[in-house]
C-alpha cells in the first residue's frame, strides 16, 4: 500500500491560523506548493466542511482536509500543517485540531490504497502527538514513514 507523496514543500510546521478556514487554506496551499493540487482545491476543501460540518476532524486533534477528485487535483498527494495554536472546527469530541492532514486524490477508484496507508500510520494512537510535537520536516516524514528526498 503506497502513501501519496509527502515532499518537504508540502509540510509546514508551527503555522499560525486564526480559525479552521485559515488552517484548511494553509493545507491547500501546501498541496499547491508541492504540485499536487491547483490553488482552487483549498476552496473546495473548505466548501466540504461548510456543506457537511466538521466531520473531517476524524480523530482527536486531527483534521483530514480533502475534497473530491476533480480538475483542481493534479496528482495524488498529502500535505501536513501543524498549528502553533490549536483551532476549533466545531467537532463535538475531537476538537481542538493541532494537525491538518491535506489529501488530494486524482481518481476516486484508486483512493483506498492511499487511505489504507494513511490509516496504517494513524492506527498508532501516538502518531498525532508525535506530528504535533515535530520540529523539522524530516521528522514529520519519518513519522509518516516517508523517506526524505
Amino acid at each position, binding site marked *: 500500500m503506497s502513501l501519496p507523496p509527502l515532499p518537504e514543500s508540502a509540510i509546514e510546521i508551527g503555522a499560525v491560523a486564526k480559525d479552521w478556514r485559515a488552517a484548511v487554506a494553509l493545507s491547500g496551499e501546501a498541496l499547491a506548493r508541492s504540485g499536487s493540487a491547483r490553488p482552487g482545491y483549498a476552496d473546495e476543501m473548505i466548501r466540504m466542511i461548510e*456543506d457537511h460540518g466538521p466531520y473531517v476532524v476524524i*480523530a482527536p486533534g486531527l483534521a483530514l482536509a480533502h475534497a*473530491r477528485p476533480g480538475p483542481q487535483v493534479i496528482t495524488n498527494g498529502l500535505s501536513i500543517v501543524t498549528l502553533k495554536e490549536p483551532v476549533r472546527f466545531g467537532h*463535538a469530541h475531537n476538537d481542538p485540531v493541532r494537525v491538518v492532514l491535506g489529501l488530494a*486524490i486524482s481518481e476516486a477508484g484508486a483512493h*483506498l490504497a492511499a487511505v489504507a496507508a494513511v*490509516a496504517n500510520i*494513524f*492506527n498508532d494512537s501516538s502518531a498525532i502527538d508525535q506530528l504535533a510535537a515535530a520540529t523539522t520536516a524530516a521528522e514529520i516524514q519519518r513519522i509518516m514513514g516517508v523517506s526524505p528526498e
Partner: protein
Amino acid sequence: MKIVTICGAGIGSSGVLKVNAERALRALDLEATVVAADVSTVRTVAADAQIILTSQEFVEAIGKTNADVIVIVNLFDTSELAQKLEDALG
C-alpha cells in the same frame, strides 16, 4: 452481510472507516462486504446494507433506513469500531 461507510466526498473519511472496519471485522472473526460511499448516494448504496458506519454530521442526511446507523467518533480507533460493531451484531 453488507456494511456501508458514509462521508461527504466518498473518499477520505469513508475510506478510513472502510479500511478500519475491515480490520475490526477480522479481529472479531466476522465476514462482511464494506463499501465506502458519499452521503448523496446512501439511498441506493445502503438499500441492502445491515449497518451504516458514519460520523455524527451525516446521521440526519442518512434519514430513515432499515440499516443500523452507527456513529464513530475516532475513525482510527479500531477498538471503538470493534466494540460498536460487536454491540450491533451481538
